[in-house]
């Protein structure tokens, strides 16, 4: 997704994120902070977002993660960056200690390397399931692929990634 494409839908995405955050926070200020954080996360993840995919679904998921992340921070009274720009996926970073961050980076690197083995179509379906959080029905309607084929392709993609990850973990 390009910056201009993002800017055209930014207002809509912000409204969507704010609605999710208002459901979570009793304070409007906190909700707005979390929604703003969501927009920053999405902006950083921009180059990985496919404009044709359901960006709103991703915004909702990222908003939920931002809420949880802020909630944890308030609980632990910790001050630090919510974002970890070294990660490819927008995540709810809860490892504030350097060791935890290194482990998280290592995990993400392994996952990215395993995902690189997938064919473009498999990768697309894997991401739609894992990142966007779309159901098989939604993927089928968005891609035009029959449901049974989506299930089979997602299954195959997951098994491939799993085999590669297990191999790397055992090393």
């Amino acid at each position, binding site marked *: 997704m390009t910056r201009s494409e993002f800017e055209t839908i930014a207002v809509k995405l912000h409204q969507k994120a704010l609605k999710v955050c208002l459901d979570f926070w009793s*304070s409007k200020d906190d909700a707005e902070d979390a929604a703003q954080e969501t927009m920053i996360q999405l902006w950083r993840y921009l180059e990985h977002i496919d404009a044709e995919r359901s960006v709103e679904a991703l915004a909702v*998921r*990222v908003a939920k993660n931002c809420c*949880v992340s802020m*909630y944890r921070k*308030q609980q632990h009274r910790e001050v630090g960056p919510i974002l970890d720009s070294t990660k490819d996926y*927008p995540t709810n970073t809860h490892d504030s200690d350097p060791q935890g961050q290194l482990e998280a980076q290592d995990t993400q690197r392994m996952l990215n390397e395993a995902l690189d083995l997938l064919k473009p179509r498999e990768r697309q379906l894997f991401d739609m399931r894992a*990142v966007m959080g779309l159901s098989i029905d939604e993927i089928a309607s968005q891609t035009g692929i029959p449901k049974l084929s989506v*299930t089979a392709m997602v299954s195959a993609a997951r098994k491939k990634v799993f085999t590669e990850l297990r191999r790397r973990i055992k090393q």
Partner: protein
Amino acid sequence: MTNKDIQQLVDKYFAGETTPAEEQQLALALKECEDLSDEWQAVSMMLGELTLGEAEYNEILANREKQAPVIKRMYPRWMAAAASLLIIICVGAVLLWPNNEQLSSDAVAKTEKQACKTTEGRIENAPSLKMPDSPSEGIGQTADSRRTNDEKKEESEKIIVNTAADEADEIDPYLHYASHEEKIDTMPYQDPARVNEYIAKLAEANNVKEGALKCSLPCDSNVVSAVYVFPDKDEINLFGRLLQLACWYKSETPGYRLTFSNQQFFFELKDMRRQLHYHWIAERINGKVLFYATHAPLGTNVSSACYQEYCNELMHINSINKKSRKI
């Protein structure tokens, strides 16, 4: 979730058959596992933090709903709007009517007349209802049968009296026949002491101990007070809970007075049954919430001096300002 359940979900996940909700469930279950096998660790990585975050978001919201029941709207908005409009019209009609007093006195007279008519009607109609079907039976009614009728009447009256007495017993077992107690609360009774019970439970749940009562002024033994210092945390949300609690009481409750801001909460109620006057004050001071509850017999002068002392103590200005203010 048992390991068997987790494994079943993992198998389903690899078959591509899990729903997003099941994947969230799996992510949470794997997060809670202490020693993950390599296989499960890989699955956890594949599920990703977005799924886990979403699962936690839903879990937190579900827990909140369990802890604090949501006040559901009982009536649709239009009904509430219509009701408020009707009230405004009624109040306006009563206030703006030119012969208000005459109208009300006429209305009273009418209702009194109607009441007289109805009682007369009952007296007149009563014997006719008990008239026998055939005149011969009425004429042939013996003194014995009249007696038995009278006895039945007395019995039924006794039963009525007994049930009335039973009801009186149920209402107030300590009510003496010589006592002259006016029943002032005509609406369903909502015990103000429940606020104190709730706060005590909330304090216990959050490991907040009741503060020691100390007051430099001579204490009135009629006044019962309790003090708590809660941490000002979002998860406790004392102000929100207090407000929800105050809203539970009907605003028609005697002595109902509620004022609040982001900084201070003040709530007042009268218990007409026990003849007590309740006050609750909460105030945000230096990252803490001072909660002060007090109740005393109606008409007792309650000073806020003790409360002010606690405030000063929390604000560390005890030496600067020792003046007390009345509530």
